[in-house]
């Protein structure tokens, strides 16, 4: 994909969605969430991967929406889809069986091995009331265990969002699963790519740690290190994150999210 590059800021939705879209090149099936993943998936279909099959937790497979979906259960995902299956089939046969290549997830906290917390901030053991009741597991724990790999986009990059230790492990990485039961390691690679407003972090090994793979334009490696809650590893071939093309930003603004639901 060539063309002039855009100067949208690295923390913008346009920048993050474009970086996320690149993760879908060459993939067959993506488990798409709501919000920024909606933009990333749509952009990928329009630019890098027209044959990508969009699978949604709601049971929709092979969606071909005529308008931008405002949620994973939006009616526009259903009309004209290739299949709509009940949730036992979606979770059991499509996801747990292993038909999803890439899952997009959000998180409040991510640890160095790519385990996610979407449940609580604060203490929760022994009946304690948490400081913040987050949305909970939803289908994230299943996506983490069963998708081929996972991509997470965070809107923050600071030691609160990337702590040394999660307040709660909702969706364990293969590392955490192996620690709990060495025989029960899940099928998936777990988190492969973490996209933040400052950098892209990757895990190269299924049982490895996140390392900084690229740093966004205008952000220093030192800033990335200081903003991470553990002594984060850096890839020997760390580069600057490639900017979105002008065309990517145009597509996002003028064809994908024309009502500016997710783009602010």
């Amino acid at each position: 994909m060539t063309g002039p590059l855009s100067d949208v800021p690295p923390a913008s939705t346009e920048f993050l969605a474009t970086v996320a879209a690149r993760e879908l090149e060459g993939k067959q099936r993506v488990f798409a969430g709501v919000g920024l993943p909606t933009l990333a998936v749509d952009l990928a279909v329009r630019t890098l991967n027209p044959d990508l099959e969009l699978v949604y937790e709601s049971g929709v497979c092979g969606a071909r929406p005529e308008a931008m979906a405002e949620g994973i259960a939006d009616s526009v995902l259903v009309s004209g889809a290739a299949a709509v299956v009940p949730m036992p089939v979606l979770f059991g046969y499509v996801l747990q069986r292993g038909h999803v290549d890439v899952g997009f997830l959000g998180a409040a906290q991510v640890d160095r091995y790519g385990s996610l917390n979407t449940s609580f901030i604060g203490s929760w053991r022994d009946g304690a009331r948490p400081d913040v009741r987050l949305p909970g597991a939803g289908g994230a724990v299943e996506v983490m265990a069963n998708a081929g790999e996972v991509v997470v986009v965070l809107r923050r990059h600071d030691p609160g969002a990337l702590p040394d230790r999660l307040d709660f492990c909702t969706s364990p990485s293969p590392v955490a699963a192996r620690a709990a039961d060495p025989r029960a390691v899940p099928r998936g690679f777990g988190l492969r790519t973490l996209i933040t407003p400052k950098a892209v972090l990757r895990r190269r090994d299924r049982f490895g740690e996140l390392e900084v793979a690229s740093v966004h334009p205008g952000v220093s490696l030192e800033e990335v290190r200081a903003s991470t809650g553990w002594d984060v590893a850096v890839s020997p071939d760390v580069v600057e994150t490639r900017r979105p093309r002008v065309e990517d930003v145009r597509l996002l603004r003028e064809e994908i999210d024309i009502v500016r639901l997710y783009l602010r």
Partner: protein
Amino acid sequence: MSVDTSAPGVVTDLASAVAAHVEDGMTVAFEGFGHLIPFAAGHEVIRQGRRDLTFCRMTPDLLADQMVAAGCVRRLVSAFFASGSAGSLYEVRRRVEDADPAPLEVEEYSHYGMVCRYQAGAARLPFFPLRSYAGSDLPELNPRIRTVTDPYGGPDIHVVPALNPDVTIVHAQRADRHGNVQMWGILGAQQEAAYAADRVIVTVEEIVDDEVVRADPNRTVLPAHAVDAVVACPRGAHPSYAQGCYDRDNAFYREWTPISRDPALLQAWLREWVYEVPDRTAYVEKVGAERWRSVAVDERLSGRVDYGRRYAPQEAAQ
């Protein structure tokens, strides 16, 4: 379509169905995954002042916020504590984070964990296995998530216990007067949640002639034997949606956030839109034509398939 609703069957009105089947302290599942959420039935439960319910729902959605705020719910059994696309459920959060104005018990699973609980309940199994909990803190948070030993030599596998609601309430596009229920679009876990329950109430956009259902038996998600009450309740899923009938009222979902954030506003909303509205017909009128136009949908028809019919020997001989 003309339907003789005086004929024997399970057809009733919503107030009667709730009065007959939903009692204080019961475990009640309201299912519909972002689609066909049974809001009208939930509002009727609020109006009838039910208390101490164990409210089961994969994604609580605004319906949980409303029923919790109305004081109907003692315990929430769920997997996701936000409203689909549009932000927090602040009433639920106040209860959980600050016990304000009262505590709320929570029993927490993942989405598939809830699906598995319904599957076990529907098939009268004690539990259902799933692969995804190893290494998660969920089993420590919720001791009802356990493990069993694989008798074929594999690793231990997590299981969730059967969920058998006293009552399951769902909404659908149509049913016949016997209770054969058909739906299309996103089907969620409605079939499992209904079969898991002792009693089932179904609100529908339309009650249709028997022959409409029997012309397409593969479309029936709940056969009549699984259904105790059918209620004609057009637009009974608003502000969620019914595929092909009306779209989700996304504007209302966005409006909910500030309402939910302010307990006084929330109670005022309940007064105006639930307590002072006698039934769904009045609600539909109050919503008003302009708003209904904003969620209207164009037609996009399925094709027909041929089920065939055997040549009767008499005909063949003629």
